[in-house]
């Protein structure tokens, strides 16, 4: 469970997140918004990588500012760009993660091998991370977030650069974890993922929450058969085909 209470964050004088309130129960919550809306900033605030200018965040009842270690034990996190230890192998890196989360070796290694297997990294687990492709690095960063089976999963654009099969596996894993009582907080630009997967959707624009609810609730608040794309564009500014025409002239 994640409780976000009135948080704000500015970079220098630019407001990135503006008095945001959110409560995420054991569910799959999808965070949408245009580029620069404040999704990554919110996620960094959740994980303690940034400190809010105002407001509180609780993860399963632990305030990230007051009890950082207890709060951090609750979640697994995969950042937007997977910047890993280039000089370690995937095996060594995930072992380090297991040790940090104090997962007994036997259980941890089994889970790690299962995940390497699911994401088809078996042949690469002993090469240096710097030699792997972008998508493989992204998979490793996801594996690091999943391997300790956290109660809260925080993923920043997890589907970027994954192949369709890996996206499918990731969806199934997230679904399964929610069924077992975990909360998943993910940001994405793929509306299809949001439409088919999300229990609830939040749309953020200019640091403020523009809409919140299940897909049905969002549809109801516009008109009944609007697609998520139409809702998104309505909330965050229409696409201007006139400008495109001008450009193509």
């Amino acid at each position, binding site marked *: 469970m994640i409780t976000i209470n009135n948080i704000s964050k500015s970079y220098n004088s630019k407001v990135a997140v503006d008095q945001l309130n959110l409560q995420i129960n054991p569910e799959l919550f999808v965070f949408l918004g245009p580029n620069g809306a404040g999704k990554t900033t919110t996620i960094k605030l959740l994980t*303690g*990588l*940034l400190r809010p200018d105002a407001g509180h965040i609780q993860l399963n009842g632990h305030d990230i500012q007051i009890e950082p270690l207890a709060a*951090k034990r609750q979640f697994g996190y995969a950042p937007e760009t997977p910047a890993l*230890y280039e000089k*370690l192998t995937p095996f060594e890196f995930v072992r380090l993660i297991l040790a940090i989360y104090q997962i007994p070796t036997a259980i941890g290694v089994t889970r790690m091998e299962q995940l390497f297997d699911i994401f088809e990294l078996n042949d690469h687990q002993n*090469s240096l991370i710097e*030699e792997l492709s972008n998508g493989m690095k992204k998979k490793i960063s996801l594996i690091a977030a999943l391997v300790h089976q956290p109660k809260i999963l925080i993923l920043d654009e997890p589907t970027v650069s994954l192949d369709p099969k890996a996206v499918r596996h990731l969806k199934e894993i997230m679904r399964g974890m929610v069924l077992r009582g975990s909360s998943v907080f993910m940001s994405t630009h793929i509306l299809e993922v949001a439409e088919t997967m999300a229990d609830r959707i939040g749309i953020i624009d200019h640091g403020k929450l523009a809409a919140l609810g299940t897909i049905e609730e969002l549809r109801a608040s516009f008109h009944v058969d609007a697609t998520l794309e139409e809702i998104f564009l309505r909330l965050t500014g229409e696409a201007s085909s006139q400008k495109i025409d001008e450009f193509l002239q």
Partner: protein
Amino acid sequence: MILPLLKITLYKSFALFRTGRKIKPIKSILPLLAMSILPVFIILRAREMFEAWLLVPQLGASFMLSFLSSALLGLFVVLILSGFPHAFYYLYLAPDLSLLAALPLAPRTIFLQKFIEMSLMGCGAFIAVGLPLMISMIWVLGGIIRAYFLLLLLFPLYVIIAGAISALLSMALAAFLNVRRIRRFFVYLTGLIIILVWAGLQFLRLSRLNPLSDDFDADMVSRFSSFFANMKFSAFPSDWLLQSIYSTAIREPERMIIPFLCLAITAAVLTRLVVLIRARSRDFSNPEIGRVFPAHPHRHSKGKLFASLFQKEMTLIFRDARVLQSYWIITAMILVWPFIQQRQAMSSIESGIDLLPFLGSLLLISLFAGNMARQTVPNEREAFQYLLSAPISIRRVLMAKLLAQSALFAGMSTVNVWLTAYRFHLFIADALVLWLCMVFCVVIGLVVGQTIGVLFGNYHWQDPRQMLTPGWNYLSPLVSILFCGLGLAIFAALWQVNQIVAFLIFFAYVGGVFQFGIMVSAKKLTKLEWI
């Protein structure tokens, strides 16, 4: 087409001085001042020595010229050898190559820019040592302004010739070997060369050539003279540079024409050759051929956190070619040191321990330790966000880093003390005292270095080399030495009173520095925002 590209090169070279944030002009001057200490020192010392030579009839200008010829020739060789890693990097591995390749640019343009970039980045050794020597020469010959200008114009040609030779040889190697692997090899080779040059200069002791110095050795000078007499320097680019400048400096400009033409034509032809050959094979990217590191699934069965952190630090040290190269150089210096030390060291050993003769090695090792420790947190790069968002106290991460490095430096100290004891016939007890002091100094150096690295970092995680402002890069060894010196002074003072107490107090001092350093760094890092 080449101009916009060269502009990028220029920006990149100045990026070394930019810290990203708006800084006061005084702060950007400070690092430049710090960096000019060595060249200014060389200019002053060389001028004094050259003037003395000019006054001795049997030496005169020809001795100075021969000395400069051989110095420049030596530098030329160093430039070529140290140019290899640069050549492999800039011509084959630079990350922006694939970007440039996708732009509508002729490969020749791209590689011309890369070659110029490579030559510029490789000329540090010349600017630090060669340029000051030439400046002193012009100075003692009357200091004609024109000659200084000519020097500024011509030295890039000389640097480019050296760069072109290493580029051509590198391309020959790259034709049938994996670029990344040979680059790694040459990185170590360069390290070795630096050590050899340093050790060579220590043994040579150039002050023996200086008639003004107490060390002056007329015998050595005459041996040098006869050596110079047998050398034919005029075939080398280093001598073309020297002759052009020398002729201008003694107001005989007509004599500079031939060496100048040689220099210019050679540089142009070689540059053309490098660009043509490199552009002919148009493969821009050079993937690493997979290396495999076997997994050890049951190394520690309980998943002990600290052991894992320690193991990670060790792995990162041993797999990072740049860090490992520094360790090789430091190890070699520490091990050569006992043999360079002067004999006076053993005079007062009988009357209990006298640390003074070994002060040099103690401060040296603490300085090196500080230099290495300064980089460890920046070297985490962006992966550090995993540790920051994980349930782990940063204290432990920092302690694991210190412990891993202490282990390496303690190993070096042990061999150093062993060699010192062997060379100066120390008693075992004295050697033990020396060893303990050395380990204490290592710990102080490491903690001080790491703390400075954390407290005064710019937090540009993408590029660890830019994490510290250049000013602090130069100041931090001084701070290491200061803390170490203070500890040693306390220890030496108490040693007269009571040896046990002296050790206990020294130990407490080290512990205090350790605790304090870890505390403030952990505090800073825990509060850090990952912007």
